[in-house]
């Protein structure tokens, strides 16, 4: 029946004010509905605005445009009936497990007896009995997140928001907690009607969600909606499961079909001076090149496969792969990474040759590196302060992103020995390059 959905989001736009007065758009044109009995996954890389969207839904901040309505009511404050589970657990270290769980009920002003009985019921449900009087620091990460779940469930929310709830846990603990949650959910034991899960883990999204919204960055937007029709419990090794994971990898590595107006369509995108560089260590670059060059991949690897074998999640793997692509050591498309001829050459060379090749590619293909080198060459004393480049980058990006980009280029520049940087004086130079 076509009743009001639990949550209805139309045309959401969110921007942050930059210190210079400009606007930084983080979310644009987001439409989303959540129906009863649904788990919807927001899947994307860090910086795609999915956590920001979750906070808008939670009423923790206000959108710049668009509307969020919960059960037909516009959200203007943290609504009753929407509870959240946090990535870092967000437990109060000075409260016991029981007191942490009771917190939301106390805020609702319920009678003490009801607070107590509901809290104990939630603690039992989530498998924490016996730990009522423990403090969070006495618990392992998995148990702490169970407290986080109990605290959210105890207020009997209609919607449960989960902000990467398993990403701070080790693999085994995370899997146990996911399975326990799904069991309770499918048995109908949870007092919730719908779930929104933010994640950057593709397998987690496929394992848990009924619908997956794939997010893209700059600004954050929904690229693709994927419905998961596999029956529960889902098995990771099931070929249908693998196919779906592969399909999402392809979606996430796809190049935009049509370039947005004003941007050039490049074979190797993202090397202009205004592009944000991810913090990637040269060790990881060399490591991934070697891994892909070696058997069994021999120069071409399926991203989900190599991610699993290297125990890397997309948030770790994609920046490395993209930096290699930017340096034209590799090409990423269709869920695959394949090395270029120079990439193979790099993997097979010794340190000196690697550095020479790296320096050559860095200066040729990364505009910012070439720009810094040019400025340093042009100055009589071959020195330039940090702010010289930071100010320039801030015309294109937020100060945080400019900081990160400069740090990243410093790391690459140091490895390539094309310039030096003194962090004490905040000065770039050609000293001992």
């Amino acid at each position, binding site marked *: 029946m076509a009743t009001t959905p639990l949550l209805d989001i139309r045309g959401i736009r969110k921007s942050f004010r930059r210190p210079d007065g400009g606007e930084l758009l983080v979310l644009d044109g987001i439409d989303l509905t959540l129906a009863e009995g649904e788990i919807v996954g927001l899947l994307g890389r860090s910086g795609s605005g999915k956590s920001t969207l979750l906070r808008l839904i939670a*009423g923790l901040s206000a959108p710049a445009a668009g509307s969020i309505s919960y059960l037909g009511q516009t959200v203007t*404050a*943290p609504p009753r009936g929407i509870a959240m589970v946090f990535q870092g657990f*967000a437990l*109060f270290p*000075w409260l016991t497990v029981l*007191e942490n769980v009771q917190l*939301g009920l106390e805020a609702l002003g319920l009678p003490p007896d009801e607070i107590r009985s509901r809290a104990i019921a939630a603690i039992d449900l989530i498998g924490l009995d016996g730990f009522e009087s423990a403090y969070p620091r006495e618990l392992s990460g998995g148990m702490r997140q169970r407290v986080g779940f109990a605290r959210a469930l105890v207020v009997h929310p209609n919607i449960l928001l989960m902000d990467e709830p398993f990403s701070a846990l080790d693999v085994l603990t995370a899997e146990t907690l996911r399975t326990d949650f799904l069991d309770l959910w499918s048995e109908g034991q949870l007092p919730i009607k719908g779930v929104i899960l933010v994640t950057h883990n593709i397998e987690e999204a496929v394992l848990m969600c009924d619908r997956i919204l794939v997010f893209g960055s700059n600004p954050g937007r929904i690229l693709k909606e994927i419905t998961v029709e596999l029956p529960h419990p889902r098995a990771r090794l099931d070929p249908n499961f693998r196919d779906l994971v592969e399909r999402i990898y392809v979606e996430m590595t796809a190049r935009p079909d049509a370039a947005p107006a004003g941007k050039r369509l490049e074979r190797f995108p993202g090397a202009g001076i205004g592009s944000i560089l991810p913090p990637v260590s040269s060790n990881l670059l060399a490591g991934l090149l070697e891994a892909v060059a070696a058997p069994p991949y021999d120069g071409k690897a399926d991203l989900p496969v190599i991610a699993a074998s290297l125990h890397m999640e997309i948030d770790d793997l994609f920046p490395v792969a993209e930096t290699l692509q930017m340096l034209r050591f590799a090409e990423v498309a269709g869920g695959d990474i394949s090395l270029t001829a120079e990439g193979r050459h790099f993997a097979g060379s010794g340190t000196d040759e690697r550095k020479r090749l790296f320096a050559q590619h860095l200066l040729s293909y990364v505009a910012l590196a070439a720009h810094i080198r040019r400025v340093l060459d042009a100055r009589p004393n071959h020195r330039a302060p940090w702010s010289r480049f930071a100010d320039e980058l801030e015309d294109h990006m937020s100060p945080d992103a400019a900081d990160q980009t400069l740090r990243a280029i410093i790391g690459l520049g140091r490895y390539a020995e094309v310039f030096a940087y003194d962090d004490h004086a905040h000065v770039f130079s050609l000293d001992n390059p």
Partner: protein
Amino acid sequence: MTAFSLPPSGVSRRSAFSLWDLVVVLLVLGVLVFLAEASRGLMQPLPEPGAEVISLDPSALPEYALRTSLRMLAAMVLSLLFTFTYATWAAKSQRAEQVLIPLLDILQSVPILGFISVTAVFFMSLAPGRVLGAEFAAIFAIFTSQAWNMAFSFYQSLRTVPRELVEASHSFRLSPWMRFWKLEAPFAMPALIWNMMMSMSGGWFFVVASEAISVGDTTVTLPGIGSYIALAIAQRDLGAIGWAIATMLVVILIYDQLLFRPLVAWADRFRFEQEAGVAPPRSWVLNALRRSWLLSLAVVPLGTAWRWTYRMEGAPTYPAPIIAREGKAAAWADRFWYTTITLVCLLALWKIIAFVLEDVTPAEVGTAVLFGLATMVRVFVLIALASIIWVPVGVWLGLRPEAARIAQPIAQFMAAFPANLLFPLAVSAIVVLRLDPDIWLSPLMILGTQWYILFNVIAGASTIPSELRDIGTNLHVRGWLWWKRIALPAVFPFYMTGAITASGGSWNASIVAEIATWGDTTLKAHGLGAYIAEATEGGDFHRIVLGIAVMSAFVVVINRAFWRPLYALAERKFRFG
């Protein structure tokens, strides 16, 4: 349901009257008697000038100690109230913050004894002819020695509450009142208690200095250890001074055992980051309170009543920082606000200059600045000397856990002990040996504050990771190289904290240290402290204000130009992790 049921929170299952209950009853009764005794004297009329109010008989000392400690306690309560309101306001309101925080910074730099000179007359006039007015003045003076750093610490804690916890508290719809007591106050508690202890240390110094003070014709002599000492100095009675010192030792020990140890042990659970392997602080008083059945009976209704206040507030709204101020109205409001601030500042500056220049020639302003330079040289030389002595000692102690365990409380105790009680001993020695007061009075300034350097360095040295020490041994790093590459960089941030505290304290102490009397002999060193002290004695408000303004300016400039950059460097370059 679980197989067992939990006892109602707060009430222990044992209902039998235990030994701990006896301890608690005794403690509570003792505190009540203490409060009653000490507050009895407040409403009495001021004694006639010249009347004998203080007796040098040692048997009077317990009562004096009681009165002195109560003043400290009253000031501490005031400081806490100030902290909770002022710092919270500054942390919650952007506009208030722009004024309150720089103001706090300036207040911190004003010499504390300067406050007494200026405010004593005002407070006396509030309750004319009664002891109460003089008590107000003394308590206010102690308050000024305690409140600023507590407020600063609380403000900084409020600004650094972890974001996820703030979000969780909004998401679970905690009202601002509930959020303050469930999240913000607990998060700030460990740093606040640490600062309360530091404030208390400073407070002892000034309680002694503020009980017997004369500003021109107005003489305040409140019964207390400070007045006892003042009389002992006037009568050159070394025996009485010995008794006073012994009493002070006992008072500080009692404060430590009954107040701060329980507080520190209690606040341990509020620490946000828990280092593994560090034994939690313990306190027998806290144990007694926790295990007492009577106390839990008394506390449960209080807890219920407290929780009831959480429900009083209305519906939550968007978290404050989210609502951006937009539009022209806000811009105009901003402009109006800044203009007002500027005008008020200019007016105040003009008033101060006009007031000072009424009676003081510009040449004398120059003299005051020169005196300030003399005091500055003293402070820097003394800090350097104290560092040369205490840094190696502190490193040595800090690397030996057993030694550090013994030395650390002693150093903290020495920092808490009011060094001005020891001044008479030093002064009598200078008089007898006919030494140059310009040189030999100086060490008194750092007598009490040098310990901050020592215990901070001990703390720093004991946190050097054992891996770093092992690699030093492994690479045969020894001698000066070991100090230069391992020990000194590792303790540098901690040393900076200690040195900044010591420097601030020494400036404050200069007012009592640069001019000293022993009977009818007065020793005077050339310096800004002596200048202020003399002006105070003569009731010369123009010169008091000039002296205070110059000293505040010196402290502010030295902090900004010297200590802060060094501290930032230490934090950036030498902090582990």
